[in-house]
């Protein structure tokens, strides 16, 4: 069957046109204003039994609303030979002569424009179901091979060859490739390169896009990311060279490059400012870190919000510049010289008020002179993907070592306690966020591990497909892993993604 309706619909179309459908749709199905919705509520009753019913239909030939349940619309159709009626909740067209819902090109078009018009303020309906057109259906029928990420398929998994000390790059590529939101973006082919044709070989976003295609193409042989390496080396000279590099440094550099190449186009209005950039990288990875500096004298708080791509967490005993925090009354509830044992511990320490010490006086804007102050970091805005960087590499003066302490991290993480908003309330309001707290919940989806010493070592990573299938990526070798294995691993970079995405 095609989009040409039935003979009864065609007849009504030629006789009366589709104005009545347009009006019905605009007033009852895609109503825009509160007034229209109130009117809809008042009039959405069956004209025979005067009762509200879900499957209400409106006659296209005359003004009659009838319910489907009690067969009022059916009897109306038969009695008057008004065969065509419109479903009042979705605008589907029903022919009672053929006794089926029918589909028509022109009706679809009207419904589509009206739905789109009504969806703009709510931003809800703009993600409609994909309706393949004639050509696409034809193509899909002809090529019946499908690649789909399913429970037990290897689609989306691919090993990466080590090009010589490039495991740091491989782990980050694996983590990025398995970032759910980024995957949707690239597989939906949303990247439109702003560079000129001869330049787009220089575009890292295009390169990432092609790597996504390689990963989901169903080819199982090892992928050789040599073009990526060349591109990174030419674009970020500080990462160039046949050397072992830090995976975290590479991640930040890669995000920075991707962000730059996203906005490289001349017709982009967002500019290079990272604060309000709407490129895909900033939409996914950028969070807002609020830093409150409180003057000890007048309690004046000066707040700044910085965009962040990752959160670096200290592991070792923290060294303060000169002064010792345990002496400061009020904030001494937890000793500062303990080693954190879990990610939550690290985050608690990260968001704890910190006395800046007598050597670091800051000019207070209300006192007008240099005062001792405390600083507290909290999350103002949570990113869709949160990267936690455990600082396992200590560089004190003339002394470098790796901290290999075990830090536990959860599969599910609730960021609510580390938000700026929960800090202000300080838990006084009796958990009003409790019920809604899944808003700030995160799920682990990738872990990058480092084995070896600070000078040389090897990076591997765990990535998650689906809900709970874990795989270990060791360069070209991909093997299945158990969730417990992942959670027991050392952890260097932890990638979490938000469970619930909000419309903005």
């Amino acid at each position, binding site marked *: 069957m*095609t989009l040409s309706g039935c003979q009864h619909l065609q007849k009504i179309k030629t006789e009366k046109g589709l104005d009545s459908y347009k009006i019905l749709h605009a007033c009852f199905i895609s109503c825009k204003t509160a007034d229209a919705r109130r009117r809809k*509520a*008042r009039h959405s009753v069956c004209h025979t039994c005067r009762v509200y019913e*879900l499957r209400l239909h409106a006659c296209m030939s005359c003004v009659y609303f009838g319910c489907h349940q009690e067969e009022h619309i059916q009897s109306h159709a038969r009695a008057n030979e008004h065969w065509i009626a419109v479903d009042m*909740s*979705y605008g*589907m067209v029903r022919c009672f002569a053929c006794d089926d*819902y029918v*589909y028509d090109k022109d009706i679809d078009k009207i419904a589509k424009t009206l739905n789109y018009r009504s969806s703009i303020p709510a931003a809800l309906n703009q993600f409609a*179901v994909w309706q*393949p057109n004639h050509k696409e*259906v034809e193509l*899909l029928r002809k090529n019946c091979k*499908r*690649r*789909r990420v*399913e429970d*037990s*398929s290897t689609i989306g*998994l691919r090993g990466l*060859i080590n*090009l*010589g*000390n490039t495991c740091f790059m491989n782990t980050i590529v694996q983590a990025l490739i398995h970032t759910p939101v980024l995957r949707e973006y690239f597989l939906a082919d949303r990247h439109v390169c702003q560079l000129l044709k001869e330049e787009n070989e220089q575009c890292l976003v295009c390169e990432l896009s092609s790597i996504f295609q390689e990963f989901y193409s*169903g080819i*199982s042989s*090892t992928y050789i990311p*040599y073009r990526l*390496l*060349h591109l990174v080396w030419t*674009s*970020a*000279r*500080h990462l*160039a*060279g046949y*050397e*072992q*590099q*830090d995976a975290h*440094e590479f991640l*930040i550099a890669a995000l920075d490059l991707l962000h730059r190449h996203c906005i490289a186009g001349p017709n982009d209005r967002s500019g290079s400012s990272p604060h309000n950039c709407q490129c895909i990288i900033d939409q996914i990875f950028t969070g807002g870190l609020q830093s409150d500096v409180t003057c000890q004298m007048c309690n004046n708080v000066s707040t700044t919000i910085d*965009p*962040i791509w990752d959160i*670096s967490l200290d592991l070792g005993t923290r*060294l303060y510049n000169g002064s010792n925090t345990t002496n400061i009354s009020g904030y001494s509830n937890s000793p500062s010289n303990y080693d954190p044992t879990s990610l939550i511990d690290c985050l608690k320490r*990260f968001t704890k008020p910190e006395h800046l010490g007598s050597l670091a006086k*800051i000019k207070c804007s209300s006192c007008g002179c240099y005062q001792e102050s405390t*600083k507290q970091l909290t999350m103002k805005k949570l990113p869709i993907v949160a990267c936690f960087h455990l*600082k*396992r*590499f200590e*560089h*004190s003066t*003339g002394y470098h070592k*790796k901290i290999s302490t075990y830090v536990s991290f959860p599969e599910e993480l609730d960021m609510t306690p580390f938000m700026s908003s929960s800090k202000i309330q300080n838990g006084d309001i009796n958990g009003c966020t409790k019920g809604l707290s899944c808003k700030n919940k995160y799920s682990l989806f990738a872990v990058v591990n480092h084995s070896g010493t600070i*000078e*040389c*070592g090897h990076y591997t990573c765990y990535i998650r497909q689906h809900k709970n299938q874990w*795989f270990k990526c060791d360069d070209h070798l991909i093997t299945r892993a158990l969730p417990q294995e992942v959670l027991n691993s050392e952890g260097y970079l932890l990638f979490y993604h938000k469970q619930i995405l909000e419309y903005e």
Partner: protein
Amino acid sequence: MALSCDIESLNIDDLKEELAFIVNDIIDDVTLGLCFEVHRSCKLGTLFLGDTDPQSQREHAIVDEPGVDVFGNPPARKQLECVCPNCQRNLAASRFAPHLEKCMGMGRNSSRIASRRSQKALKDRIEADGKPDSGDSEDDYNDADWSLYPDKKVKRLKKEKRSNSPRRHKTSRLKNGSQYTGDMTAESTIKQERADTPDSIGGYEYMSLEEKKTLLMSTCGVISGHTKKMCTRSHKCPQHTDSQRRHVRQFLLGTGLCTDDDDPVDIDTYVDGDSQSLRETLQWEAASNTSSPTDSTSTNNSTSNSSSKKRHGKKSSKKRKNPKGHSYHSGSGSGCQTHGLYDLD
């Protein structure tokens, strides 16, 4: 709905009933929508269009057995090849990174090779414009990957260089503005075996402030009283002290660098008063100058650094974590060692 009658007047049971009615209505509504969606795709013949065909499903099933990866392949590494985007030659993929380093002119000897290449290209352009350079013979000559007896040849070449080709290339490289940033970082990775040759450059008097900054960001930079040349080893160069390095920066860039330490914003900078802080200060400086469109190379480098730094927040900028092997650790001996580690399967 028309349910906006007096909610006050309803008792709790009625309220529950109304609530249940609304919830059920919403669920029904959504269900109906799904039914219509399925009906529509069924009628138009697109319902199972996107489903996996059984054959592909079988082809891509995960293999979960010990000894093989998820694709069912044994872990033995096949020799894969790739084409170098820089010189279009075929080579083993596992040797790509060391090759590219040389090819792009960053390695031990490759800075010379690359500069010779660029010089040659320049000469060619001047002498016979338009005629493409096909002479690979000289390129191959020095590239360890491509010569028959790599070690011997390289050593021999080194000796030749040492004896009779002083720094003809180096000065030319300095003039070649776009080239030298990379070469300088490469110079910093120069290994122990070259310690007897002077790792230094002259001509800093003619550099712009911007160029000097870029150079100092990656190198030690201490000017020898003897040869009047700058040291081009890394910041951790054992021959010079941190105070010497600080001194030369003050001398070359003018004052104002160290006084920045009083800036209350950057609380961490002066805590560990080693070369790290100096380097950060420099990067900070360079980052604040990025608006100047003059030098694109250093802008690229420094802004990406500094942006990451800023993003770390003040708390975290104290320690920069680089678990990479430091350049002076990976001399000829340890270099092999690290390579061995990477070959673990």
